[in-house]
């Protein structure tokens, strides 16, 4: 462990004072997006980085969380902060069912199967107009509130809520990786049959990771919808499915800082390149391809080489190995 014990506190303090450095509400908006996508990318990282499977359905769980708060608010009045728990439970429940069905298969088939589940949820949301209002989406979603005592209205407030969750979840991931359960995730990723022979229930381990990841994605969605006050099925579209994967891969899978960095790059580059129109996705795709080919450990691996953050067996990105 070469990471200075001041690195993490300094980064957190930096993140806390960051929005105070500018009064520009547009920049605040970008900060909120960054934190929400960080939470989402961190959750997908559990699947890609820790258990080593590629899920193409993650945006669907983000969408389930978003629609849960939106529908709760529409039919049952103000959901308040409790909506987050319901959204987590809802997304986690879907995650349990879908994970139970698809985790029996691994590798490319698993990726395609999650793509299939994700597309079914997307299509259903698009066509089930009675509940979801279809492609029009649900608008005028009430802001998150705590039982009438406090309401999240400004971008800064949402930023701090999301930052709190990212820091908390990041810490949980770190603690998890120090635990027996976390080590069994890595064992399953590195060699499933060896892990099984050591008494690890591979299927149950993967399912646990999948459910946690989907529940957290649901929470991210449950904040995203009231923050934007509108949700459409587009949050589950192929664009988002791919975007989250890009964040995790470009940032650095299997690490905690990587997905957060990936989310920053995603939000940052898309905004910087806004003027270039459709060219921005071309540049973004090029970046991802280059990163996959030349930096399998993600951008975080450059930082690690330079200033030696992280370390320890669990922070290593999965080593790509040739399989013939």
């Amino acid at each position, binding site marked *: 462990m070469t990471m200075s014990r001041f690195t993490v506190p300094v980064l957190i303090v930096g993140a806390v004072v960051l929005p105070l450095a500018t009064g520009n509400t547009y920049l605040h908006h970008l900060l909120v997006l960054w934190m929400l996508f960080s939470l989402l990318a961190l959750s997908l990282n559990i699947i890609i980085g820790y258990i080593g499977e*590629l899920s193409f359905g993650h945006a669907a769980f983000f969408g389930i969380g978003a629609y849960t708060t939106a529908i709760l608010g529409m039919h049952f009045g103000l959901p308040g902060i409790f909506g987050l728990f319901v959204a987590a439970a809802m997304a986690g429940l879907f995650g349990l069912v879908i994970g139970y*069905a*698809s*985790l*029996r*298969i*691994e*590798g*490319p*088939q*698993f*990726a*395609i*199967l999650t*793509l*299939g*589940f994700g*597309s*079914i949820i997307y*299509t*259903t949301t*698009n*066509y089930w107009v009675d509940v979801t209002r279809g492609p029009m989406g649900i608008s005028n979603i009430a802001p998150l509130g705590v039982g009438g005592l406090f309401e999240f209205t400004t971008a800064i407030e949402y930023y701090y809520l999301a930052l709190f969750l990212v820091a908390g979840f990041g810490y949980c991931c770190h603690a998890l990786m120090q635990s027996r359960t976390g080590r069994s995730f890595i064992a399953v990723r590195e060699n*499933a049959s060896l892990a*099984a022979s050591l008494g690890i229930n*591979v*299927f149950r381990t*993967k399912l646990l990771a999948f459910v946690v990841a989907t529940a957290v994605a649901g929470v991210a969605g449950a904040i995203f919808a009231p923050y934007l006050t509108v949700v459409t099925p587009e949050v589950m579209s*192929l664009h988002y499915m*791919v975007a989250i*994967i890009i964040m995790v*891969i470009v940032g650095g899978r299997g690490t905690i800082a990587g997905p957060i960095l990936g989310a920053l790059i995603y939000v940052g580059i898309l905004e910087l390149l806004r003027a270039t*129109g*459709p*060219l921005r*996705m*071309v540049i*973004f*795709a*090029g970046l*991802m*391809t280059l990163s*996959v*080919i030349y930096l*399998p450990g993600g951008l975080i691996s450059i930082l690690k080489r330079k200033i030696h953050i992280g370390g320890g067996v669990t922070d290593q990105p999965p080593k*790509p*190995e*040739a*399989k*013939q």
Partner: protein
Amino acid sequence: MDIETILLIQQIMNGLVNGMTYVLIATGLTLVFGVLHIINFAHGEFYMLGAFFTFFASKLLGLDYVTAGILATVAVASLGIVANRFFFWPLRREHEFTLLLSSLGLALLLTNGGELIFGADPKYISSPFADGIVAMGPMILTQQRILIFGIGALMLVLLYFFIQKTTMGKMMRATAQDAEGAALTGVDIRRVYTVTFVLACGLAALAGALVGPTAMIYPTVGSWAVLKGFIVVVLGGLGSIVGALIGGLTLGVVEALVGGYISLGFAQAVGFAIIIVVLLWRPNGLFGVARRAG
């Protein structure tokens, strides 16, 4: 025959024609997986390019539909060489996810590059066969749809003989079984990669050129094509051409029936519902071989 039966047969015929498109798309996908063990996310983009090249060849060069379609197929097949050279061949020793993600990057590059160059507005390929009608008793198909089915079937037969009878086909089958072993016995793996991608991209482009006149074309159509391709390939079993044929025709017919009798929206999801059921029952697909977890 009463009207109900006619309607049913008509739906099934339409489904078979759509299914043949899926077969053409999926055959390339399954070939690349079967021989090279690569899941190519960018496969649908070659379908898109086939359609757009046909459009521009007839519009800018003033070629007739058939020449334009052949030219587009050949051009996209040559692009397959380039794609393989830069995105697949250099990564052949990497983890399968690296290849999957690199092909995803290529797919995004081609979709968004296509939107940039071709424009996002839908285009329409004109074909002399689009309006001609062939009546078989009370059932009706356009000449274009007959063409899709006929050429699709012809291509599959040609491909079958290519893989079974020619030296190159035998080299491809050897590579599919064991790439390293094949290389040891003198098979030029690099050429196998090139030929496989040329065939796969050419088939996808041909599908694009054939289907183009029956629907609007737009640059994001590639993701539709690759999703259909995945459904078919997983249904039939990754790597199996017979599986792609049966899977594709089945998907086409089921979608047509669901779309005709239940709802068009549900027809889009039914394919995925089928693969989920099939994979839970037979994880390897109907005709495939895949790894099973745990």
